[in-house]
């Protein structure tokens, strides 16, 4: 949620009109969560907050299985930035239908030519917080989104309390570095 609003804020700071759509409340209870972000020079060009199937430019995946679930939104030629670490589903575990994260990662490699994979868990460990995966992904996606590091930092300052800035800034930087490594 924070990630989608940050992207929208960055777009607004550059003079665009932005919309987001979010699923609220399900993430903590183990549900899957999708946020849509759209921006454009004029509001009338993006009447709906939701992106139509097959028309997203960029897909940011916090988890490989979830990235695969949302792949139908991505347009042909679109790019994806995905963290490779899987999150097990309690229900799938109960019924014994667990699929390894690597299966999804392999599929993404084949399906998305413009794919950036980052090791979110490693970055979280380096930065010292598992809650900064969103920033690591945004850092890795910054170029694709067309936002400079400064734009992102400014947006971060607008939407986060000062004591969290340093941590999130480091995650952004680590993400950007991980992206280089991924290529």
């Amino acid at each position, binding site marked *: 949620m924070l990630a989608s609003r940050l992207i929208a804020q960055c777009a607004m700071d550059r003079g665009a009109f932005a919309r987001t759509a979010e699923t609220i*409340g399900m993430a903590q209870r183990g549900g899957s969560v999708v946020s849509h972000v759209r921006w454009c020079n004029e509001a009338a060009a993006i009447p709906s907050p939701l992106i139509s199937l097959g028309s997203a430019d960029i897909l940011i995946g916090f988890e490989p299985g979830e990235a695969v679930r949302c792949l*139908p939104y991505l347009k042909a030629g679109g790019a994806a930035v995905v963290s490779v670490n899987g999150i097990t589903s309690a229900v799938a575990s109960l019924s014994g239908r667990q699929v390894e994260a690597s299966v999804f990662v392999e599929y993404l490699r084949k399906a998305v030519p413009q794919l950036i994979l980052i090791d979110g868990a490693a970055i979280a460990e380096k930065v010292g917080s598992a809650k900064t995966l969103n920033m690591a992904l945004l850092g890795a996606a910054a170029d694709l989104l067309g936002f400079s590091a400064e734009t992102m930092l400014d947006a971060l300052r607008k939407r986060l309390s000062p004591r969290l800035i340093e941590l999130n800034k480091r995650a952004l930087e680590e993400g950007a570095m991980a992206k280089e490594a991924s290529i």
Partner: protein
Amino acid sequence: MEHILLMGNEAVAYGAIDAGVSFVSGYPGTPSTEALETVARLKPDGVHVEWSVNEKVALEAAAGASYAGARALVTMKQVGLNVASDPLMSLNYVGVKGGLVILSADDPGPISSQTEQDTRRFAQFARLPVLDPSSPEEAYAMTRAAFELSELFRVPVLLRPTTRVCHACSAVERMEPTPLVKPSGFVKGKEWVIFPRLSYEAKKRIVAREPELAEAQRPFNKIDEINGDTPALIGVACGGIGSAYAREAILNLGLRCRILQIGAPNPFPEAMAAEFIDGLECVLVVEELDPVIEDGLRPLMNGIPLHGKRDGVILVAGELSAAIVESALRTIVPVRAINGGGAKESASARKPIAGSEDVDSAERPVPPVRPPVLCAGCPHRASFYAVKRAAKGRKAIFCGDIGCYTLGNAPPLDMVDTCLCMGAGVTVAQGLKQADPEAYCFAFIGDSTFFHSGMTGVLNAVYNRADMIVVVLDNRTTGMTGRQPHPGTGESAVGESAPEASIEAILRALGVASVRRANPFDVEEAIETTHEAMDEKGVRAIVFEAPCIAVAKPGKPMSIDIARCAGCQVCVKALGCPALSFQPSPKYEGRIVAHINTALCTGCGLCAQICPTECIQPIDLLCGSGGGGL
């Protein structure tokens, strides 16, 4: 003024504040909750903001504020409006003084509600104006306008955004605020006392004002000609988020058409509708929930085909999308009209990446199902588990209620046999027991729901000599909607201290002689307590006390000593804790053992108490003994 990124619910809050609101009340309910939370967070000077115990109370208190001239906002979800319907129906007859706006957020899908009801229908039934924003920016403007409308006609005004407006964000331009409206004070008069004679006169007034009201609401409705200046033959009538989907679909198809966007559907804007229909060959209505606009148009159509929910061109239930509208348009519009002039890329031209020729979509691995489950470390899991164990082998019915704990119906717990509406667990159990006397009847109810509408049910049970066990799951917050305070938490909506209600004392005061309190995380004690209660007769109560993981500080996570784990799967299969799963252990030739996700585990200790080999221990103990790790 500046543009800020606001969620629809935040936009409602800012709209109310900028309209000079001074009294805000409500009860949490998805998708409405953030509206009141935003006012509470901003704490503007001179504004009273409260979480009321239920929606009826919230509306009545706001009516009082309005009688004395204050502008008041009441927030709730659509099913909350059912609870508030008693004061609402009468309030229209009595009228208001300070502007009174009721946010009743609808939930198409439904995504997190019991019903797919439509507040616009409710407005028709109650003969009230209702504004239906299609975006956060419109929600801001409409909230401000709603206060004006309310004062102009001395009528409560409903505002009904839907989930995709409430939980969408957009760049909203804040306008110059109206200074806080200082309440003029209550002026006594016979108009404040509802009497049949008065109501007869009021009813005549309510009906007579409708044309005037429709005229005043004209600015909320509009006709747009889209794509070119040849005469339009196709019309699309829409409202709320349906307007956004309709405009998106029309943009994608490059369709020449005329749009009628209705933001104020009651009374129905007949004059504008007639203007819209004039010259058209067919009309499609795009709206979620009930066919309100469609039914409003039907008598005006004069034989021109009208498509929508009644003929099945648009889904009768569930959410819409731009894609659904596109395909609906394709079924009613001759193909030549589409892509005729200057069409943008159409739906068929847009190709998703998955399923493209390079990768066979049959290869696409299916992502795991992720239905919502009780959180790791949730005390409800512990309570359900204890009662399940205690009732094992006896005939028992478990009545549930509305809250996180409704999720207790999922396997492996399977502990919610009924769920109807707020507070109904307590009362349904009473009737069940009468008609099925053999069964032990349990009613599970959360603390917030208990205060909302559980107490009267308990009193009824005591008075009518019911035989049942009330189980209060006291986690000291309103969990489902994101932890709002309530009378039991000792905290007000704005985070100040408040008198703390004791559930045990209330139960005793209501006449429940047998009340027990237990910590659900102490499995043995919790089972024992339940046994004791089961062995008694009459109305008895157990209060399971343990805070929601969202308000308590998590403890040290647990870990598995895999050398000792038998792989029996008891822990996973009995509890369904999302932190527990099975994985093959590389260290032991791929033997399947339990695994704890330490990022999720709160160290509640439930699994440790039921593991037959006692191999689950706090993580630091294990590290010391050289265990742990796969």
